[in-house]
Structure formats: structure tokens, C-alpha cells
């Protein structure tokens, strides 16, 4: 029972089944029922699209225009003021250098934690899937359980370990914790992918030279293109969108963009500049949205495989 990501089963397994012939669409003519369904779907699509629309138009308005109270109206004069302010001058706590600080922190968190988490879990998944390790089953089951553990129960120990290692309160602390927390799920995904590699390939590889690392570099790595891209997208979006780990381990100097944004929108003193808030929200949302609209299919594969991450 240790070898699954259940959602992957619910999705991955069943997609494959469906390549069976599907009976052709009956008629091209639009029936009454079709129209009703399409109207309903369009209304739902509006429900999903409205918040994005409101955020976009608000971010291009001036505060005077916002105070008129016409939330859905397009911006009178379009202005980039709020965007400029959000990027360059918005305050997060006592720092007023804008979201660009958080943006670069997020990038600085993203790169090392991607390298760490992917390399660690790839090698582990490979070793568990293709080599004879006696306690592999137990270890996999343990990882499966770890993937579900709520963060709060390991929060304080991790804080105290990272401060012993002198990385608490920096982008490195956040990056390392991300790598640690992602490890169980990623190992399970990699292991599931590698276990389908035919035995014959492995036996042949072992006969022919085959040390552990040479097989990994020369055979396994070149075969891992697909899964790597899916995992890369999964990790980029989930690390970029994370708030909790960033706010816990980032201290004052290592806060990712989401933390800056949260500080900005929850500020309770002074007049609230909604246009700046919305510009800041969009700036934070743009990187994952770009990925989503470019490679949506891979994104969906990633989140369903990583769904057990919750």
C-alpha cells in the first residue's frame, strides 16, 4: 500500500484507459440542451473570471476613481501608478522598498530549494525503485505518512534546528525547509515513475559496467525528461505560492513575495490603497499564471500527482 499517490491513481490510471474508441459526436447541430449547458458553463466561467477582472481593473485605477464605488467599471484614465508604487515603494513592516525585494527573495528561495529537493528525491526514488534495498517497503510507507503530517507539528523543532544551523531568518532557511517538506511526496512520485522501468534494462545495465551512479547518469537521467518537467512545474508553483514557510523561516531579510503581499493587504493603519494592493496581488500572481497558461496540462498533471501534499 505504500506505493501510491492515490490521486495519481484516480487520474493517471484512468486517463490511459480512455484512449479506447469514443463514439463519434452525434450531430454538429446545436440542440436545446446543448445551449442550456453552454449557458450554464458560461455563467460559471464568469464566476471564476470576475475576481481576476476586478483585480486587474482596480490595479489600473486611481484611488479617486476607486472611491466613486463603481467596482466593475473599467479604469477611467488607465494608470500604472499603483503598479509602480507596489513594485518600488510599498511597505512590508518597516521596509518600504516595494515588492521587488520579496520578488528577488522568492527567486533566491526558489532556485536552491528546487535543486536540493529535486536532486535528493530523484536519487532516493531511483534507489528505492530499482535497487534491492531490504527495508525499502517500510521506508516508503514512512514517507507516505510523512507526506500527510501537518506542518505545525514539526514547526518548532525545525525553527530550532535551522537556528542552530544559522540559516533561520534567511532565504536559505526557507529554501532548506521547502526542500525537506517536499521530499516525501517527490520521492513517492519519482519512485512510482521509475518502478515501471523494465527489469531487463536494469539487468543489462548492471551487467555492463553498471555502478549505481553511472546507471543513474547514463540511463535513468536521460529517461526522466517528462517527469522532471512535471515536478519542476509543481515545485515552482508551490514554492512560489507558499506563505506559511516563508513567514515562519524568512525572518526580516528572507521574506518571499507572498509575505510582503500579506503584510500589505492586512495593514490596519492609515488609508488603504486598494489599487496598490491589487497591483501587488497581480505582481505576485503573474509568474505562476504565466506558467499555467503556457503549460497548463503539465501543471494539472503535477498538482494531481502531488495532490496528497494537500
Amino acid at each position, binding site marked *: 500500500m505504500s506505493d501510491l499517490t*492515490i490521486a495519481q*491513481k484516480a487520474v493517471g*490510471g484512468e*486517463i490511459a484507459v480512455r484512449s*479506447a474508441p469514443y*463514439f463519434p459526436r452525434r450531430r454538429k447541430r446545436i440542440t436545446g440542451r446543448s445551449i442550456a449547458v*453552454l449557458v450554464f*458553463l458560461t455563467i*460559471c*466561467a464568469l464566476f*471564476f473570471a470576475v*475576481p481576476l477582472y*476586478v*483585480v486587474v481593473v482596480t490595479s489600473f485605477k486611481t484611488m479617486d476613481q*476607486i472611491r466613486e*464605488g463603481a*467596482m466593475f467599471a473599467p479604469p477611467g484614465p488607465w494608470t500604472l501608478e499603483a503598479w509602480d508604487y507596489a513594485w518600488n515603494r510599498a511597505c512590508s513592516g518597516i521596509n518600504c522598498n516595494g515588492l521587488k525585494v520579496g520578488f528577488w527573495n522568492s527567486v533566491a528561495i526558489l532556485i536552491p530549494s528546487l535543486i536540493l529537493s529535486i536532486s535528493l*528525491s530523484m*536519487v*532516493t526514488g531511483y*534507489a528505492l525503485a530499482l*535497487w*534491492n*534495498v531490504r527495508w525499502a517497503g517500510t521506508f516508503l510507507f*514512512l514517507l507516505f*505518512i*510523512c507526506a*500527510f*503530517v501537518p506542518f*505545525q*507539528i*514539526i514547526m*518548532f*523543532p*525545525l525553527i*530550532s*534546528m535551522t537556528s542552530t544551523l544559522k540559516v533561520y531568518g534567511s532565504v536559505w532557511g526557507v529554501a532548506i525547509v521547502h526542500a*525537506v517538506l517536499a*521530499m*516525501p511526496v517527490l520521492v513517492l512520485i519519482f519512485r512510482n515513475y521509475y518502478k515501471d522501468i523494465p527489469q531487463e534494462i536494469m539487468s543489462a545495465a548492471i551487467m555492463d559496467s553498471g555502478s549505481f551512479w553511472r546507471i543513474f547518469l547514463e540511463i535513468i537521467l536521460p529517461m526522466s525528461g517528462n517527469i522532471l518537467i512535471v515536478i519542476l512545474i509543481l515545485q515552482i508553483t508551490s514554492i512560489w*505560492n*507558499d*506563505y506559511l514557510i516563508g513567514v515562519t523561516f524568512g525572518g526580516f531579510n528572507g521574506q518571499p513575495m*507572498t509575505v510582503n503581499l*500579506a503584510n500589505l*493587504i*492586512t495593514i490596519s493603519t492609515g488609508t488603504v490603497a*486598494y489599487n496598490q*494592493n*491589487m497591483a*501587488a*496581488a497581480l505582481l505576485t*500572481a503573474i509568474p*505562476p499564471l504565466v506558467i*499555467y*497558461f503556457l503549460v497548463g496540462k503539465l*501543471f*494539472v498533471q503535477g498538482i494531481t500527482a502531488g*495532490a496528497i501534499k*494537500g
Partner: protein
Amino acid sequence: MALRWSRIAPQLALTPALAVTAVAFVGSIGWTIYLSFTRSRRLPEYTIDWSEWGRQYQRLFNDAAWEISLRNLIVLGLGSALAIVFGFILAAMIEREKRGESFFRTVFLYPLAVSLIVTGAAWRWMFNPELGIENVLHQMGLTFVNFSWLASAETAMWGIILASVWQSSGFYMALMLAGLKSINSEIWSAAKLDGVPIWRLYIEIIIPMMKFTFITCAILLSLGVIKAYDVIVAMTLGGPGQSTYVPAYFTIQALSASGNLGYASAAAVMMLVITAIVFLPLVLLTAWQQRRRAESVR
């Protein structure tokens, strides 16, 4: 397949992952459980007073805020279950009506790509009492409508549920769509021949056939609800008052705002217990599914 001389390398390669699991997960969980029996305040204390080791838990169960958190957890869970229902309806419609499938899928799923802080920011703005949707509706003459949900303790949870449903429906739609597509297409033509009305087909045949997909969705949803934190921070910060506290938020407040480590540890242990309660059926379900598959192979 492993030869004797190649025994060592794989074991060595597993050491880092094993160390991480042992220290960051197993060890840390034990550490937190231990701390929950101590009287640690801001800094950890490691002496346990055995005469009242359950002190923190006792306090927890008498804490009104914890009670609110638990109640909100259930409310949020039941409310977010709408996302599964909604996701199923969307998936069923997309699946029957092939036109525009990829367009609708893209629109329904994009909220998932965005941070919950962003989602919270957007909805917080739409719920704004003076300038938000309520104001627009009032201007249209619908002055009886109340849409500033976040402003009052009774409705604030509903605001959070709406935002969560908006964010996650697309995900359940994707899972349901995969489930629907795996259903044998002959059922549709058979039902058509028999003249079975379409809604009966769904209720009596399709939904029972998809029960594993539904259970999977329900478990994923529960686990997500237990972890709900970001959306609370972005929308209400637990307020008004403590009306939107959930266990995840409560625990972190106890640790970082009140600096009460022992107390926060007890709350975290309770979160783990709740997770285990949800998680257990998943393990059983998986085991059962595998046994069934093994039997069908035989």
C-alpha cells in the same frame, strides 16, 4: 537484480533521505509531542511534572478559542464540500458537451495556480463593505443585500468558504473529469436506447461507479481543510474577534503571538490526531482497492 558488490552504493544514496525523515519528521514529531507535556513558555523546558502532564491539553479543551477553531474546522469542511459537488457538475457538463472543453477547463482551473494569499486579497477586496460588491448592488437599488460578509462574526466563515470553493472547484473538476472519462462509453448509448432520463443515469449509475473518485476527493478536501491557514491570514486574520480561528491558525498564534510553546505543541498534537482520523480511511481504502485489483487479476 542487485549484485552483491553493488549493495553499498544504493544504501549510501538513501542516507540523506533517511536522515531527513528521521530528524525532520519522526524526531521532530516526537519532540513536539514531548514539549506538549511540559510547561514550556517562550523557550522550551524539558522537565515534565508528572502529576499534571496533561495540563496543556486540559487548558486547550477549556479554551473558547480552540472550541471555535474546531467548530470552524467542521463548518469549513462541510462548506468546502460544495467544491466537490460543484466540481462534479462542471465536469459532467464539460464531459457531455464537448464544445469548448479546453476553454472551460482553463478558466475553471486557473485559481489553483495562484497563491491563496492572492486569492484572499482579491476576495477581501470584493467583500469590502464600502466599495465592494455590496456597494455596487446597493447602487443598483438592491439595498437589502448584505455582501460584506467578512465584517461580521456570523458571516465571516461564509466568506472564507466562498473563496475556498472558488479556488478549489477546478481541482475537483479535473479529478472528476478523469473519473468520468474512464467510464465505458457504451453506458451512454445503452441508457439512450433504454430511454433512461439523463439525471437518473447520473444518480443511479455514474455516481456509484465513481465512488472511489468521490472518496479520494473527500479525503483530499479534509486534509486541505485541516491545513487551511493562508486563506485565513489573507482574508480575516482570524477575526472579527476570534470568529474565524481554525486549528492551524490557532496553533501558530499560540506559538508566535502568545509565545506559548507547550500550549502550541498540544494544539499541534491535536491537529496530528485529527489528520490521522481522516488519514486512516485513506490507508484502508488503498489497501482494499489493491486487494480488489489483485483479485480481479486472478
